């Protein structure tokens, strides 16, 4: 009996180690494959040349980089005030009543809604009814709705992590609640709030489905927020599906992976700093 328990444990351990290592291997394989196949096509020229468009798939990715940049900036500009307001409300003002419960339920539900449903919504409201047509503006508004729950959750956690002594000190100096919140608590939570913003930047770079049905996907250089455009992810999709230029698609994948690695590194660094700060004081 004792012997068999030991053998079972050994077998189980083996399986569990394999599962753990497999996860790392899958990641390494995906990133390694894309980098090996794509790195050869990445050059300065590739980054600053516009794509030729059409079925050739030749050219670079400059317009897609500009499109990604526009979408990201606009999404953050729209989502930050809304998300921050909601986070401050939930962390500082909300009492435990049905309104708060409803808001929390809303945030939870939104977080689970698939990207393509946001796309349908954006298509109906922004593209069709509000006549923004297929444009960067429609895409960014749709994307802002999509990132809102992530933003609210992350920012709320950050605000809640600020020690109560900060609030007490503010109130003891005869500051009003709002003065305390806006000049003491929110500045203290700033690294966490910036983390929320960067997470949303990451989502803007990754998301494709909701933009595919709202942004139009033009390969031309966008001239305003009302022009159609494409992000890097969308560009990769078009290259893979409509052209034979799989090497260019891989190269776009390399650029995407580098951006994601940078974003991940920055958020990890910021989170560590924030925790150190909150623990230290």
């Amino acid at each position: 009996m004792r012997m068999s328990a030991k053998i079972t444990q050994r077998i189980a351990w083996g399986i569990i180690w394999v599962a753990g290592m497999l996860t790392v291997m899958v990641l390494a394989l995906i990133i390694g494959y894309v980098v090996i196949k794509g790195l050869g096509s990445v050059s300065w020229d590739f980054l600053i040349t516009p794509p030729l468009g059409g079925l050739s798939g030749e050219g670079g990715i400059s317009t897609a980089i500009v499109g990604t940049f526009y979408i990201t900036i606009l999404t953050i500009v729209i989502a930050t005030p809304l998300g921050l307001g909601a986070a401050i409300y939930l962390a500082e003002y909300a009492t435990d009543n049905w309104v708060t419960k409803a808001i929390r339920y809303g945030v939870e539900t939104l977080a689970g809604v698939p990207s393509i449903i946001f796309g349908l919504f954006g298509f109906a409201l922004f593209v069709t009814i509000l006549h923004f047509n297929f444009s960067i503006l429609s895409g960014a508004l749709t994307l802002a709705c999509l990132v809102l729950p992530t933003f609210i959750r992350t920012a709320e956690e950050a605000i809640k992590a600020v020690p109560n002594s900060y609030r007490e000190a503010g109130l003891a100096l005869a500051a009003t609640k709002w003065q305390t919140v806006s000049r003491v608590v929110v500045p203290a939570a700033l690294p966490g709030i910036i983390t929320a913003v960067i997470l949303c930047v990451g989502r803007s770079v990754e998301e494709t489905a909701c933009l595919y049905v709202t942004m139009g996907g033009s390969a031309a250089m966008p001239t305003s927020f009302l022009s159609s455009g494409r992000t890097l992810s969308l560009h990769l999709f078009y290259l893979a599906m409509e052209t034979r230029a799989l090497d260019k698609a891989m190269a776009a994948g390399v650029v995407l992976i580098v951006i994601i690695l940078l974003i991940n590194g920055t958020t990890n660094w910021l989170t560590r700093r924030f925790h150190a700060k909150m623990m230290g004081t």
Partner: protein
Amino acid sequence: MSIISRRFNEVLSRRMIFISALAAILLVFLISLFVIQQGIPALRSIGVLDFLFGTVWRPGIGEFGILPMIIGSVYVTIGALLLSAPLGIACAIFLAEVAPYHVRNVVRSAVELLVGIPSVVYGLVGMVVVVPLIREIGGNGYSVLAAIIVLTVMVLPTVISISEDSLRRVPMAYREGALALGATKWQTIWHVMLPVARSGIVAAVILGMGRAIGETMAMIMVIGNSILMPGSPLDPARTLTGNIAVEINYASGIHESALFATGIVLFLLIIGLNSLAFVARRQP
């Protein structure tokens, strides 16, 4: 600053903050409203049952049956979960109980990065690696099986991180109690930890299903987008999400409305799964 303006600021800021918080609720409401309102004309003219159980989708001749897409979505979702649930739970046990400190950090950052990789990159790797491999077995490679393999990797992080969380929440005393009774570490995990963490693990799998059923771009890239009913895993198929994305840009009239109706079905499936996960997590 006068007391009156201080009071004014106070009230004004509280209002604005409250309104932005309400935006979340409003948004859920608006999304449902728009998708439902745009989808109803199609449901009216096609009929709910014909829409849900019709096996032919040919917008050109006015046939709108989405059963093949429902089957397609369910097929890939269940397939992906059959693979990623055991793998993900094993990996969660690895992270929570087995891995040495440094190995754990490496595996955990790998899981974090897997979440961050854009779905189009998964789709691309699926197209150039998985699809040709499946072509060797039979068919043209763009298939349910390719979609299942790609999805398995994509939902793995969800299953791992939520399962690990719930394993970590098992009180230390349970573990110590079992070990003190002379159980091996594996017996402790199998007979004590897993049963206690069960509701969280079930929630992890259900949330993974939600992710799988909502995935769009990677599915379009590897599943072949056929409108026919899939039979064998080597057949091409189409998911509900893919149906919407592939056709919405050029659809109009009743066809467009039918795509919104597809969205309603998808929305209901997701809300159902999320509520299930919510209930599972609330279990003691």
